């Protein structure tokens, strides 16, 4: 399997209220060709920052990349000229976000917005008829029921699910090699979510895409991803195949998360009034501007020992292809 995307030792800082806040701390991930990689984590873990940083979408006012590199098929992206970066961004690596309604321009028809994307990444200027044909093909690709009507609609006339399909169409219009999807279904109803995830999986296989799927939902990663990276407080704390993460979580945070899910019932007890309690992780996610010393999870960890406090553990390969950032793992 070829490595199509490699993030190496990426550190990103934000400026917030006069303070410097570390959003990503020495993060490294690898995306293989034709693979769906899940990035899972809670608020403040850095998963969205990671998505934005790959395409250098963090504005200079907000923050900056302190160190590290992003390699796309061996080519370093963060040091590219603006021109070259614009070709990659959207053209070879596409991104879709959580709320399609805020990503679409409310004053232009959907067809116009798709056309914009098509024209931007093609070398030639396409004649109107050809453009229209391609737009309709794209909308068919994303299984839009009435492509021609949709093309003429404004975003507010479409449902959330349909808007997200339009976003996917726009993202796929230039035939990218990588798709980054940041919480693509969080804002959608569960039955629509199923359709959109099904669509993404189908398109991924059909078009040979490599996908980075960012989510907080373990159910989604279980159904769509081959590999998972778990993030906490700006860092990767566990990385392995989906199967490994679910059957053998090595990091206490991953274990804690999986055990606290209301859907994980070993022996459902439905007798009225006798409900079991969830095994919750105590405390809360740390404030990025005020991280604890050593292992960032140690204040909440059920198996914490003294050695966890002074120094942050490194990510080590505990079992083959299964990495964890914990001195007590394995």
């Amino acid at each position, binding site marked *: 399997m070829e490595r199509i995307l490699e993030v190496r030792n990426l550190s990103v800082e934000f400026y917030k209220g006069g303070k410097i806040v570390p959003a990503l701390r020495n993060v490294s991930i690898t995306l293989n060709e034709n693979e769906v990689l899940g990035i899972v984590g809670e608020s403040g873990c850095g998963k969205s920052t990671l998505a934005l940083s790959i395409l250098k979408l963090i504005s200079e006012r907000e923050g900056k990349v302190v160190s590290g590199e992003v390699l796309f098929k061996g080519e370093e992206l963060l040091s590219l000229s603006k021109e070259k970066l614009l070709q990659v961004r959207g053209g070879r690596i596409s991104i879709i976000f959580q709320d399609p309604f805020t990503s679409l321009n409310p004053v232009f028809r959907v067809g116009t917005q798709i056309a914009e994307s098509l024209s931007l990444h093609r070398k030639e200027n396409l004649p109107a008829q050809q453009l229209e044909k391609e737009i309709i093909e794209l909308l068919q690709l994303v299984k839009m029921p009435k492509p021609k009507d949709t093309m003429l609609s404004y975003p507010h006339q479409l449902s959330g699910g349909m808007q997200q399909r339009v976003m996917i169409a726009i993202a796929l219009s230039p035939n990218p090699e990588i798709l980054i999807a940041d919480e693509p279904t969080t804002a959608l109803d569960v039955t629509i979510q199923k359709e959109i995830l099904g669509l993404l999986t189908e398109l991924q296989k059909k078009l040979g895409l490599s996908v980075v799927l960012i989510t907080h939902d373990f159910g989604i990663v279980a159904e769509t991803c081959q590999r998972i990276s778990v993030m906490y407080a700006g860092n990767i704390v566990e990385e392995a195949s989906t199967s490994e993460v679910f059957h053998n979580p090595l990091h206490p945070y991953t274990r804690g998360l999986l055990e606290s*899910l209301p859907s994980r019932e070993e022996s459902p007890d439905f007798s009225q009034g006798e409900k079991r309690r969830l095994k919750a992780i105590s405390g809360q996610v740390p404030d990025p501007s005020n991280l604890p010393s050593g292992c960032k999870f140690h204040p909440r960890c059920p198996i914490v020992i003294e050695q966890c406090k002074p120094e942050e553990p490194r990510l080590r390969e505990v079992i083959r292809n299964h990495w964890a950032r914990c001195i007590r793992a394995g």
Partner: protein
Amino acid sequence: MEGKGQANDVILRAENLKKYFPVERGVFRRVVDYIRAVDGISFEIRKREIFALVGESGCGKTTTAKLIMRLLEATDGKIFLNGKDISLLERRELARRIQIIFQDPFASLNPRLTIGTIVGEAVRHKPEATGKRVRSKEMKEKTKELLNRVGLPVNILNEYPHQFSGGQRQRIGIARALAMEPELIVADEPVSSLDISVQAQILNLLLDLRDSLGLSYILIAHDLNVVRFLSDKVAVMYQGKIVETGSVKMVYHNPHHSYTKRLLEAIPKAEIGISE
């Protein structure tokens, strides 16, 4: 007719509840149609029961919650609280008995009030409903007791909401809801804005409070896993109507209505088969 044939432990009963919103067109604002947000629903909630209303956006569950709280007046149908028609109850009386926990812990607490005031106000209002006065010292004590009950430290009375995390604010919101010693709590998406590691804590808290205080809940939620974990009974709503209702066990394990089946099938399963 009220209360006739009603089991003793039914705390809330909705009968053929309807809420239609008129759609107006033109300069003269003629009513051309109605949005049937809630279209003739009936259900019962018993004491100590956690009753869930589930459905996707637009199904009418939030409107139903508003009708129960009388934030909206029903177009038709009735709601009975302990056998009494709520449209005949004084608002204070209703507020004392039914309280609400909101979805967004960031929006539901007044940022300009201290925690002591946010929870204390509610404590102070309770006696107003019963006609008794409460002294400031008593109010403070009661407030601390409530904070303790929801798992918060008691020395936060002089602090402000922005100093707390989402999960902590949600606990504050719950403390405020409990201050009036309600019988029924409307929990509108109580955990959906929280991180998953915090969700579990709040879900546990809601169960603990139900057990220790004998509360009933009406849970409005879209996360079917949360609903299954927390609820005793569930009603599935679709386009303003209840399409299926029953114990959580029955509905989840043996759904009858095709929409219920679709809804349940759509839940992504956080499990992996050994063979994968």
